[in-house]
């Protein structure tokens, strides 16, 4: 099998030189060439190479831009080793190249058979080492998780064995007390035993549920959730659970964004944090829950660890308790880490909170100061309904806007405002007219300034959309026309007189309108209106 290489350089002489250097009877290289970055990306999307040599200066993009096209987030996902070819004295480019994922570089003046082969060998080794390290890290993460699961399972086993002891012990008691030779049956006593069995079994079921969430064997039951409503309910329970010594307060932000979480797991998380708060306030104190909407930008994200930029609902839970030392704070989410006496806490509560938040795509930050209490900040991603989600993905296609002037002719005030918003949003200058007559007036006043007339077909008054278009075509040679119609094409006789290419159906969305406008403005000819 020959070793496949790709050389990306717009200079054919340079490509030939590299090919010549690497062609020797004892070397088995198969060399593919690309002159442009775009072409190279095309080739890289369908073929694999042992190494790629890329010139920093390409006509359509620089070498670093090309590298960055190849991975989503970090350089760990580079498909193969890259060697950057740079000019003399461009140290900045070299260090950038390495930072953005190149494995090595060669200064173009120094290209020779030896430098190429050394760079090739070095780049491949660096790349392999990096890949191996990533695989090892992944294995380690997995091992750590398995370790945590192992600890968790044995802890759950302990609780389970206790519950089973209670169940079996009570069934044994029932058996004896219901024995045929027994004459006096104490119904109340029997009922107590049955109740004890029942509650032990239920605790067991709850334990399984927690365990499954933690080990991800049970999917969360996620719903679109209003956290204010959820917390409102839970805080009633908290007031009872935390006792009279703890003042529970809840302030929910108005217009709180919805989130997509397992509501009962969220409740559990709040209760867990609250119970820890109570234990940190042996003499009583305040437990305050607050919600707010927060848009996390890059700056905030980089100063807060692993959180990704985006819209979140923030739930902060603060107590006025004893706080905790840094060493404890760092470990509170570890399964089985507990500062409580054996038997008082499993050390599982907060690790389950952590598991839940992670599974919900959220983050949690804990701030604590000894003597000044602890604050948990839970960030849960804002839920955006599917329909709304579709819009940004369309936008990603980059519908081009423009700076031309568009006259919007529409008798409906709301439709007119909507069209104006969209077009101005795309960079166009807009003028408005509420009727065909008004439009004709505007055209004569703004002589030469209007590039496109965007008009409804059906309008009250003497001049409808078709009449307006005819006048435009006669009197204003350079001006284009786009029609809007709220009726199906065949439902209106007028519609049939209009070419499909200059008609947009109502309601339209931003992207279809923008695309249509751009297309018509860019076309040389105008379409006949009949």
């Amino acid at each position, binding site marked *: 099998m020959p070793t496949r290489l790709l050389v990306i350089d717009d200079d054919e002489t340079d490509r030939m030189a590299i090919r010549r250097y690497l062609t020797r009877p004892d070397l088995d290289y198969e060399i593919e060439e690309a002159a442009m970055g775009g072409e190279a990306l095309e080739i890289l999307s369908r073929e694999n190479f042992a190494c790629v040599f890329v010139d920093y200066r390409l006509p359509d993009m620089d070498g670093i831009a090309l590298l960055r096209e190849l991975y989503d987030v970090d350089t760990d996902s580079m498909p193969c080793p890259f060697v950057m070819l740079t000019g003399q004295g461009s140290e900045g480019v070299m260090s950038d190249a390495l930072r953005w994922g190149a494995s090595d570089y060669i200064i173009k003046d120094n290209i020779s058979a030896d430098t190429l082969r050394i760079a090739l060998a070095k780049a491949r080794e660096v790349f392999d080492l990096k890949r191996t390290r990533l695989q090892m890290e992944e294995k380690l993460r997995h091992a750590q998780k398995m370790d945590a699961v192992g*600890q968790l399972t*044995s*802890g759950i*086993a*302990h*609780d*389970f*064995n*206790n519950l*089973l*002891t*209670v*169940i*079996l*012990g*009570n069934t*044994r*008691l029932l058996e*004896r007390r219901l024995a045929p030779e027994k004459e006096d049956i104490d119904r109340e006593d029997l009922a107590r035993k049955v109740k*004890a069995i029942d509650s*032990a079994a239920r605790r067991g079921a709850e334990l399984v549920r927690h365990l499954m969430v933690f080990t991800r064997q049970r999917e969360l039951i996620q719903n679109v959730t209003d956290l204010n409503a959820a917390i409102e309910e839970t805080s009633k329970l908290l007031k009872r659970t935390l006792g009279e010594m703890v003042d529970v307060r809840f302030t929910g932000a108005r217009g709180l964004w919805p989130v997509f979480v397992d509501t009962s797991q969220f409740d559990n998380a709040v209760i867990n944090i609250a119970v820890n708060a109570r234990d940190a306030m042996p003499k009583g104190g305040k437990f305050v829950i607050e919600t707010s909407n927060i848009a996390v930008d890059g700056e905030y994200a980089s100063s807060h660890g692993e959180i990704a930029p985006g819209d979140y609902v923030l739930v902060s839970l603060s107590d006025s308790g004893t706080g905790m030392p840094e060493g404890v704070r760092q470990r509170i989410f570890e399964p*089985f880490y507990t500062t409580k*006496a*054996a*038997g*008082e806490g499993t050390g599982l509560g907060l690790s389950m909170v952590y598991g839940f938040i992670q599974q919900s795509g959220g983050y949690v930050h804990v701030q604590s100061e000894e003597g000044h209490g602890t604050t948990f900040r839970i960030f849960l991603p804002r839920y955006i309904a599917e329909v709304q989600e579709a819009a940004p993905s369309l936008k990603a296609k980059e519908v081009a806007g423009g700076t031309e002037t568009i006259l919007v002719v529409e008798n409906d005030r709301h439709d007119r405002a909507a069209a104006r918003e969209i077009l101005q949003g795309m960079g166009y200058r807009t003028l408005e007219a509420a009727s065909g007559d008004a439009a004709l007036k505007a055209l004569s006043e703004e002589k030469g300034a209007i590039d496109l007339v965007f008009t409804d077909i059906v309008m009250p008054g003497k001049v409808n959309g078709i009449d307006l278009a005819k006048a435009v075509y006669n009197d204003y040679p350079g001006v284009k026309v786009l029609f809007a119609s709220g009726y199906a094409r065949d439902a209106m006789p007028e519609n049939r007189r209009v070419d499909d290419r200059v008609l947009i159906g109502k309601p339209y969305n931003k992207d279809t309108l923008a695309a249509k406008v751009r297309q018509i403005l860019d076309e040389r000819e105008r379409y006949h209106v009949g």
Partner: protein
Amino acid sequence: MSAEPVRVLVVDDELSVLQVLCENLEDCGFEVSQAHDGEEAVRMIEQADVRPHVVITDIIMPRQEGLETITELRAKYPDIFLIAISGGGRTKSADFLQLAARVGADAVMPKPLDIDALEKTVRELVS
């Protein structure tokens, strides 16, 4: 054995377990007392007019841990029979129970407990 009832002290921090064990052992005709942790158990034995014949103790408990309790009782009261029970914890229950046997437990039993087996063990030890 005389007609004197067998006295059993049960030590467990989990209330529901403690209750159900005590009630079962009473049903078996034993004279049962209970303690919630090792410290309480040791104190009860020290202050009691009549010592229990058998102490049944859980291993993972707050304050005084089961293994310590077994070690202490074994040293102070060589004539009391000790049964260690455990449902495991950070490690398998077998590991705890092995340790318990090594520090002087006369019998070890994993949870969930088989009540009949427990009764049998108590009777065998005191006979």
